[in-house]
């Protein structure tokens, strides 16, 4: 990464406006950025920091409803803010390429991967179609995609997420651009898959000496990828420094707070010696049609304790939750609640049984009805399960809003779209509490949130657990979250429990090989972490290690 070349991109005093409520307001307030050939810059910050907007502006592109209102963007001598749209368009795909956050959504579902790959080179007459296909296969090979000569002839839905993300990187390389914008390319992936993609991206960027802007909210990831890191907050630059000194010696308070985010950790509780567990799952089997998705799952959750269920996507974590709530009747095994066996389907459960187990969802955005006021969203379960009406109901809702640290006088009459992501998730929590449950399933409740906000939610959940003696089943793929909040850990893989036990035991070796793979795949702040890990595992078998 050392051979930095000439200046490639120079952004000065960039201002971007967005249109909302019938007026334009500024969302990026004068940001400077310079990038040399072959250099990788990490842009980090929370959502709303303007990372993606700046990344797109580097391509001379503004999303619908946004406009570049001031400053200059000079790419290799061409001023993008004043040149014609046709000139800007000709740079895209050929000299500046883009890799999107979700490759699954950003590949066109109607075309084969290779046809999408060859589109730009053929359009720009850089390569003939057949040459471009040959080149695609070579790039697939370099990015260590399986069966590189065939995979391109599949449609996006036939390829896994991690593979698609690599195919998209290959597509970005199709014209050998001078610069690539990576917009959170691994955020949607499991940790084990993330490593493959990170390694593949880093290798190929180095091989072709491509400059890159790497946008992410994950510090540990950016530490592996970038030469220089720029921290953004609400459209302003906080600070910029080379990766090493930024990690060792952040100057601004905000940066320090970001660095410290993963420090929240509560003390671990021990399982009570006797007493009936709140939830007892025994030998549970479940299938979607003919496909068996849960195979002989057993675990207990005691009152006041948090059991974290971890695993990659497809491991059956959420399916287990669906079985416990009765949404998916299991095909075998039993679920006991305080010693009493529950009917398999929610349809046959009593109102009281339903009341005691509540859920909080990953996407607060979609889990709250946007057309209903916060007070009514929270009031509904209190009315349905608790039979409260009138003033009693209003008092209960106010009490719940107080519990989640939202001011009732301000929030009672508001609608979900007026709230921030963290506030919405708090409303989700209050709705679960409104039923007065003894057990709550938290399904990836923090994975859609920024780290600072997520920490606030975890602290809130922890406090509520102490106050109300709640039992949590905490579904997550993020081991940092597990470290901070769990008492016991259940590791799942392909519908089976591979290991379970108290947290302190689980995080200490020796591990089950799969637990070990998960643990070692979590990026660490050390900039050499990825290189060291790849060396340990042996570069060539990363793919196998992760997919086995």
């Amino acid at each position, binding site marked *: 990464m050392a051979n930095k070349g000439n200046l490639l991109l120079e952004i000065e005093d960039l201002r971007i406006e967005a249109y909302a409520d019938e007026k334009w307001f500024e969302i990026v307030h004068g940001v400077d950025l310079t990038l040399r050939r072959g250099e990788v810059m990490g842009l980090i910050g929370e959502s709303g920091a303007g990372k993606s907007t700046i990344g797109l502006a580097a391509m001379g*592109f503004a999303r619908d409803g946004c406009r570049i209102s001031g400053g200059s963007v000079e790419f290799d001598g061409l001023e993008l803010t004043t040149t014609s749209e046709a000139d800007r368009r000709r740079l895209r795909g*050929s000299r500046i390429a*883009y890799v999107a956050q979700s490759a699954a959504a950003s590949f066109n579902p109607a075309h084969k991967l290779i046809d999408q790959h060859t589109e730009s080179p053929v359009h720009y007459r850089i390569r003939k179609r057949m040459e471009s296909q040959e080149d695609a296969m070579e790039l697939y090979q370099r990015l260590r995609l399986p069966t590189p000569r065939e995979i391109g002839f599949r449609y996006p*839905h*036939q390829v896994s997420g991690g593979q698609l993300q690599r195919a998209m990187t290959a597509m970005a390389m199709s014209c050998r651009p001078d610069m690539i914008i990576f917009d959170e390319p691994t955020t949607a992936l499991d940790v084990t898959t993330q490593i493959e993609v990170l390694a593949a991206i880093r290798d190929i960027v180095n091989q072709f000496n491509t400059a890159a802007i790497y946008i992410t909210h994950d510090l540990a990831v950016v530490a592996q990828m970038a030469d220089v890191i720029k921290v953004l907050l609400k459209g302003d630059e906080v600070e910029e420094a080379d990766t090493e000194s930024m990690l060792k010696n952040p100057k601004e308070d905000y940066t320090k707070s970001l660095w410290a985010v993963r420090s929240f950790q509560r003390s671990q509780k021990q399982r009570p010696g006797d007493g009936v567990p709140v939830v007892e799952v025994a030998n549970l089997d479940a299938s979607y049609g003919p496909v068996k998705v849960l195979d002989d799952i057993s675990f207990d959750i005691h009152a006041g304790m948090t059991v974290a269920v971890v695993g990659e996507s497809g491991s059956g974590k959420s399916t287990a939750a669906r079985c416990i709530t009765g949404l998916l009747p299991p095909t075998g095994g039993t679920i006991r609640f305080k010693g009493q066996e529950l009917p398999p389907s929610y349809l046959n459960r009593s109102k009281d049984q339903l009341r005691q187990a509540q859920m909080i969802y990953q996407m607060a955005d979609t889990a709250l009805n946007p057309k209903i006021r916060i007070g009514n969203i929270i009031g509904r379960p209190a009315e349905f399960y608790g039979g409260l009406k009138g003033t009693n109901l209003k008092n209960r809702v106010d009490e719940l809003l107080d519990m989640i640290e939202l001011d009732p006088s301000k929030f009672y009459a508001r609608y979900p779209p007026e709230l921030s992501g963290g506030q919405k998730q708090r409303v989700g929590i209050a709705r679960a509490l409104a039923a007065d449950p003894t057990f709550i399933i938290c399904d990836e409740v923090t994975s859609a949130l920024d780290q600072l906000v997520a920490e606030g939610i975890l602290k809130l959940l922890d406090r509520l657990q102490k106050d109300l003696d709640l039992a949590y089943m905490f579904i997550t793929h993020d081991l940092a979250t597990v470290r901070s909040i769990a008492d016991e850990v259940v590791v799942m893989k392909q519908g089976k429990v591979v290991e379970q036990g108290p947290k302190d035991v689980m995080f200490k070796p020796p591990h089950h090989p799969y637990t070990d793979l998960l643990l070692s795949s979590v990026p660490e702040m050390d900039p050499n972490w990825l290189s060291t890990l790849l060396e340990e595992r042996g570069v060539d078998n990363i793919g196998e290690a992760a997919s086995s």
Partner: protein
Amino acid sequence: MDVARIVLMRLGLGLVTLLVISALIFGAVELLPGDIAQSVLGQGATEETLAALRTELGLDRPAPVRYLSWLAGAVVGDFGVSLLNQSPVAEVIGTRFANTLFLATYAAIIAVPVAILLGVIVALFRNTIFDRVANIATLTSISSPEFFLGYILILYFSVKTGWFPSIAKVSDGMSFFELLERTFLPALTMVLVVVAHMMRMTRAAIINLLASPYIEMARLKGAPGWKVITLHALPNAWAPIINVVALNLAYLVTGVVLVEVVFVYPGIGQLLVDAVTKRDFPVVQACCLIFAATFILLNLAADIGSILTNPRLRHPK
């Protein structure tokens, strides 16, 4: 599930639907007021002759029995005899239905490509003057009654200019081009009626997709506007477009009685209206059954089209 199985299942469901509809048609005709024998023989008929005719037509048998025997005939293409001229219904309907199909095909071959092309173009130039003009023009044509459109076309293209004949009279000996010329005005009327619907759906289906991440990706790959629309949006928009096209094609077959009347075109629509007023119930039932079958077939075709344009169904994992 593979495509062949889906198609077979839909086909089976279509047949069941047709069976239900046949019962409904039969029942509806049963409910028509008045006595068939009376209306055939006129007011002067005696009780004996009426009774004789009823026996001859089988009207004295109970309704379920008559339904089953009608159904058994219909399955093998025998729809009974017309009460008016005693000739087989299949013969009476045959040429009329062929005429209707000809006119519908003629209109469809013009209307479908024009509508989709216009839809793509207005999606490309959305929210411009061109978009608005095209929308207003097609909306005007869809909002005007067919007979009004027909007479306007006759006025300008026939009476004032003499370019096309105002009466679409067709006979067996005509050459194909003569036929096309004779039926041009009714075909054009029908085109004007159906284009707007299909065009607006094409536009809406495409614009609906423009916020998708893969469309933004196409733009960021440097694809020009027309390529973004035709190569990236349109292939994902086929399912709703195909469904609206099928609905409009069905309308071209079953809903054009007014156009036939205006241009004196011997199609099945006019035949049906005549048969209802003259209580020629075998013809009514046969016409209705044909209309129902047309709807079911076209919807089936739309379903199959939607499946074939969906790569997820065409190429399962």
